[in-house]
């Protein structure tokens, strides 16, 4: 069975081993024991200073798309890297496993936070420069938010949910509301756009509507309880909740308040000729996927399973998730596990007794705006493309992901 079950078993086994070891009161590994049979992890300075996961937990990120450009490449540049959603639990993606997207493949800048500055200028009453210390003096907010790459889409050749959906992740972000900083600088009346720009070598920049900038954007120095990771923009990144990944500028060093759309290189790359496609830009649509059972995993036999997965939407909080265990004929409400936060991954689950027959598992979500995740057939019809393995729609694709469970318990991409 995929990586989920061995991981779980491994954890149980090592937890039991630790418990057993404790009762024996032994700290040193006993001679002759195999690694699996319960040796201790001997403490060392590194593990005391900054913990590590168990060596039995082997879940890792992979390059994206599969078979595409390697990360790192021969020069040490990193391109796209997908998160192992098949192993995820809860709603938070660990910082080490958070997906990575870069404009064109880049070195991760090695920025000394003491030297980093954020400048706000342009159509403002008072241009301002903030040090990291300045930013940390200001009122902070902490919110969970997903980031998803606009190119996150299920293709027929994809096997696992990491390949079909791994370019989304969710972290708890801490920082200052961009609106607070913009009010400090005093936005001149009517300025309709900002340009947010990073400090990395390509100085990635995106035009963002002022309505979004003043609504809920966050200038983040914190991620999952510690500093933002270098791959995620250390020391400072912009969070544009619910917008396509590219808007979330890393290594943020400059916000310019401007009078028009600036047609930066990032903007240019997202232009389209098709009004239907363009109108679906910016805000990510409602989307969900079952992470267990998912592609390449193996059910050991008939019986009870908790189906579980993630749902998210750029339109706000997830209100409802439905699951079908019969290929979409009947839909039943899944349970939302924990709190459904706005523009955050939301964990759902559904109790299922598998009868051992071949079937297809699907999930669909509805967000607080009433937007319902569409089927692949609906999307194909909208864009007037054939509904077959050649299916390819422009722009973002938030269609329902089917997982086909074969009678031998193997799980496959239903879009293949």
């Amino acid at each position, binding site marked *: 069975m995929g990586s989920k079950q061995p991981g779980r078993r491994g954890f149980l086994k090592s937890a039991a081993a630790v418990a057993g070891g404790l009762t024996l009161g032994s700290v040193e590994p006993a001679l002759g024991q195999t690694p699996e049979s319960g040796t201790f992890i001997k403490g060392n300075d590194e593990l005391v200073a900054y913990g590590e996961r168990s060596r039995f937990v082997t879940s890792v990120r992979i390059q994206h798309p599969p078979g595409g450009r390697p990360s790192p490449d021969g020069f040490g540049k990193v391109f796209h890297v997908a998160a192992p959603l098949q192993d995820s639990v809860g709603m938070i993606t660990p910082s080490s496993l958070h997906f990575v997207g870069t404009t*064109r493949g880049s070195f991760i800048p090695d920025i000394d936070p003491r030297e980093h500055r954020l*400048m706000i*200028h342009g159509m403002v009453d008072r*241009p*301002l*420069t*903030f040090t990291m210390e*300045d930013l940390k*003096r*200001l009122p902070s907010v902490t919110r969970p938010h997903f980031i998803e790459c606009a190119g996150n889409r299920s293709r027929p050749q994809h096997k696992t949910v990491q390949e079909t959906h791994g370019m989304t992740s969710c972290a708890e972000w801490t920082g200052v509301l961009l609106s*607070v900083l913009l*009010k*400090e*600088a*005093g936005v001149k*009346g009517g300025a309709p756009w900002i*340009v947010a*720009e990073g400090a990395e*070598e*390509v*100085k990635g*920049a995106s035009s963002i*509507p002022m*309505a*979004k900038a003043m609504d*809920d954007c966050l200038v983040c120095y914190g991620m999952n309880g510690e500093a933002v990771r270098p791959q995620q923009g250390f020391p400072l990144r912009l969070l544009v909740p619910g917008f396509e990944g590219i808007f979330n500028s890393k290594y943020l*060093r400059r916000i*310019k308040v401007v*009078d*028009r*759309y*600036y*047609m*930066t*290189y990032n*903007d*240019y790359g997202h*232009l*389209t*000729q*098709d*009004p239907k496609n*363009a*109108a*679906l*830009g*910016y*805000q990510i*649509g*409602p989307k969900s996927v079952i992470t267990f059972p998912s592609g390449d995993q193996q059910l050991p036999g008939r019986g009870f399973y908790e189906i579980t997965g993630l749902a998210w939407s*750029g*339109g706000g909080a997830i209100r409802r998730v439905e699951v079908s265990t019969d290929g979409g004929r009947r839909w039943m409400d899944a349970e939302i596990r924990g709190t459904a936060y706005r523009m955050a991954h939301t964990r759902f689950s559904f109790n299922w007794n598998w009868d051992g027959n071949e079937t297809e598992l699907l999930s669909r979500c509805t967000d607080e*705006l*009433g*937007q*319902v995740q*569409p089927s692949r057939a*609906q*999307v194909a019809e909208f864009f007037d493309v054939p509904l077959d393995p050649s299916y390819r729609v422009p722009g973002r694709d*938030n269609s329902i992901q089917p997982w086909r469970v074969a009678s031998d318990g193997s799980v496959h991409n239903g879009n293949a």
Partner: protein
Amino acid sequence: MGVFTMEMLRLLPFLMLLGSSALAQSPTYGVGSTPSEEEIRAWDISISPTGQELPPGRGTAKEGALVYLQKGCAACHGAAGEGGMAPTLLKKQAEPDIDPWQLGRVLPIRSPYATTVWDYINRAMPLNGEGTLTADEVYALTAFLLHKNEVIPEDEVLDAQSLPKVKMPNREGFAPLPDWKPGKPRLQGYPY
């Protein structure tokens, strides 16, 4: 009528805000410092379609052809602007009056504004030497690529005044941007 009244009520706080913002707002926290003009200019590299941030300098396609070789552009983009590992810089060959989108996803032909071409070369080229080109070199390279794609004649001088005036074939060719508002669905009537 009822809807209209509701809408006015919803707008009321906003209208009141507009009234008060006629006076410049004073900062709430007083944190942060004032950057100098020089500091702003040094970082002010995103180029508006109006060209307002363009620095002084000039260049032609002929000069650009030389810079293209001197700076090693050919190593990644090919000697003629195509055939290298990096994206092609030349439009597809096609009928003269074809839809510009059919000429390919090639920055110096698809971009609606020549300023975007200048901006990207300036901020992001050459690979591993980003930010090292002089303004003259960027003007020259931009002229070279626009000439290779038959947008401007070989002898046209590009500078801060002429560059924003270059009429790119795709100027009007892209779909309207989403009119984003908080709490609104992406596209009314759409199943997404």
